[in-house]
């Protein structure tokens, strides 16, 4: 199936070209909460995103590390319905510290040079999401599960 053959390449390409993703976390009593975050992908297995520590999402992540992240390439046009690719990553997020945080900041700022001040601020937390699997949607309704590659 052609769809399957080039799906990984399309996913990789989208993770490099897209900048924003919808992050979902759980709040008190498991209430879902979503917001936009900038992200950088390290392959399809690890994703980096940053948030300041005073935010609701930071509180949520501290209490429950399970997250979902939705990335898509819609253009805000009608044609999105048949053209757009949407990928949901399921997994958990961990805040980085020490040397790993330094390496993460380097990767993050390589993609977002204009966010360097933000991500280096002491009040900002950098998270690494470890992806357990991807749910990829094409052509409006075709759904394929993809296991992450490191």
């Amino acid at each position, binding site marked *: *199936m*052609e*769809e*399957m*053959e080039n*799906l*990984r390449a399309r996913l990789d390409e989208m993770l490099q070209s897209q900048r924003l993703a919808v992050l979902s976390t759980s709040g008190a009593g498991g209430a879902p909460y979503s917001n936009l975050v900038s992200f950088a992908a390290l392959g399809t297995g690890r994703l980096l995103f940053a948030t300041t520590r005073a935010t609701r999402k930071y509180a949520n992540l501290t209490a429950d590390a399970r997250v979902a992240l939705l990335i898509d390439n819609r253009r805000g046009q*009608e*044609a999105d*319905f*048949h*053209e757009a690719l949407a990928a949901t990553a399921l997994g958990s997020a961990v805040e980085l510290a020490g040397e790993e945080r330094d390496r993460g900041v380097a990767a993050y700022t390589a993609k977002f040079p204009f966010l360097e001040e933000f991500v280096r601020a002491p009040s900002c937390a950098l998270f690494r999401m470890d992806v*357990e*699997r991807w*749910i990829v949607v094409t*052509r*409006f*309704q*075709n*759904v*394929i*599960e*993809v*296991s992450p*590659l490191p």
Partner: protein
Amino acid sequence: MTYTLPLDRVEPRDRERVGGKAYSLSRMAREGLPVPEALLVTADAYRDYLRGTGIGEAIALEINRKIADQMRWEEMWDAALRIRNLFLRTPLPAGIRAELARAIEESFRGVAVVVRSSAPGEDSATASFAGLHESFVNVRGTDAILDRIRLVWASLWSDAALLYRKELGLDVARSAMAVIVQEIVEGDRSGVAFSVSPENPSQGVIEAVHGLNQGLVDGSVEPDRWVLDRGSGRILSHRSAARQKALYAGDSGVEARPLPAALAATPPLDPEEVLLVFRAVVDVERFFGSPQDVEWTIRSGRLCLLQARPITTGGPTAAGDPRAWNLTLRRSFENLKALRQEVEGRWLPAMTSDARALAGADLEALSDEELAAEIERRQSLHAKWNDIYYAAFIPLAHGIRLFGQAYNDALRPEDPYEFMDLLGGTEMISLERNRLLTRMAGRIRGNPGLAEALRRGTLAGTDTAFDEDFERFSRTFGDLGCGTDRCFSGQGALVGLLLRMAAAPPARERFDAGQIERRREAFLARFEGDARQRASEMLDLGRASYRLRDNDNIHLGKIEGGLLAAVAEGKRRLSGRMGAESRDLSAEETARALRDPAWRPKRGVPRPCAEETGADLRVRQLRGQPAGPGIASGPARVISGPEDLLEIRAGEILVCDSIDPNMTFAVPLAAGIVERRGGMLIHGAIIAREYGIPCVTGIPGAAEVVRTGDRVSVDGWLGIVTIEPRLPFV
């Protein structure tokens, strides 16, 4: 925005708005060539209709269900059928409607018209593809004309256009359609003329029929044909046609009438008129500066040119392109009626009698040499019937589509496949076979002693009625375990199937004869007079096509069974000297080995199984074609061979590459059906509708992406299959 232009107001800058065909007509009108009055509906109207109603993205979603190269021709029909229904059911926005209605009323005031397509770019790419788009002859009244305009728009997405989508550059965002509303000229002779013969550049060709030329264009009326020398205008040859009938304008549309003897005996044109037509087409060629193909008609001695198109080479008839055959499947009602006579009167009886002769022959009595000859004879017999199957039987199945279109035009139903409900229920061999199975299962259900005896392996002697049915079943339908290339099972498997059927609630066909009859009456009530007669004939043809669609495979299966039986007898004899090797012999090899005891087949080294690729990808949901309404969920039973079919249990989802009618006995036990092949005419879809079982077709790699035991949901309303794997993913 103005949506219409009179023929004489077209400027060169309007060319893309009015389409190639309309632009040519407007230039001919200005030149003083005899063309009918016409009003042009510009492509702006089409674009604003799509924009105003939002159906553009609905079309895009429809044609992008899957990768274009993976779409079968039947799936393109289905997509075209659904798109056509979308246009039928989506009214014109008030502003567009008001402007078109006003212009039509001013131009025609109740006069009958022809509504023709005029695709922008038609004189380049589309010119090689005649007949992609629809035209409607003899349409009267503003509402009817507005309806046909929408149908001409819809035909931008016709099955044939989708087939050549790449070449045409069809694209929802860019493609558009203009329309010509042309005063009808009810000629008494009509035809087409080629200023240059496609076969010989020094010649021209005129074809002519009595009456209107739609019959000539769609191939249902054979024309007289003249070949002329281009230089001198001399007639080089005249081929006379049988001239049995002609098409004339009826109350609405056209109808075929038999030709009176005097007309049948007379060629439509005398030599002087042939020359008149030829001179006209040469004038058109000179005017446009390139060879032309012109549709013309003569009314009361006056020649009128209906449309002109440049003659191009290439296009759909290019040698070696299998799509050319697909295009021949688009046939007119008249053409299919004649084909039905041929199939029912000639081919089916001959095929049945051949099958009977094969079944009656005593193969064991033949010598090895004679058996080898018999295998070869049966091979060529099977090949012959296979050719006839493609040449006549498959084309006839298109009566179903023709009826479906008439039904949808008249009733505009929400479900574009509702018409299938009028076709089913009767005289299908596979249904008769299933009814007999259901009856036997019923006897088991009502007789615990019989069930017990069967479970123990005692076949006969417990229940006489059951025994009779069982015997009759084997005699009439043979071994259920026979697939297309091999046989499996024996009676034990049939008994197992019956016991499982008895344990499940009885399957019911969705409609009884009374319900179907009431639907038939509701359909016919939409028509009056001659139109009702025609609608009734159309339904009759649809039913015949539908029956044949299922039965022909069973008949062909019997011919094939005869071949397999002879091969099996050969292999039985060869197993003595060749051992297990004889099992894999083809028919040719079996015949050869029977003749030459020293011969051994050459076999390549078996290839190791390819490593499974993409194991880290797993399909969770796929969109195919909705083919039987309803929703169902259950464990999958993936069918890789006949033995899998006999294993089916009640409530399972049957997943397969393709079902043929010889396999549909398992369907009443299934909760849902998923098939790789797509289209509404495939057997899985037909039988699923008969039992009201949810069915989705056109799922790429269905039998590979699903594994037996996976939990599968079948959404037969939207054509979606969801797979919940039996084993966890990671």
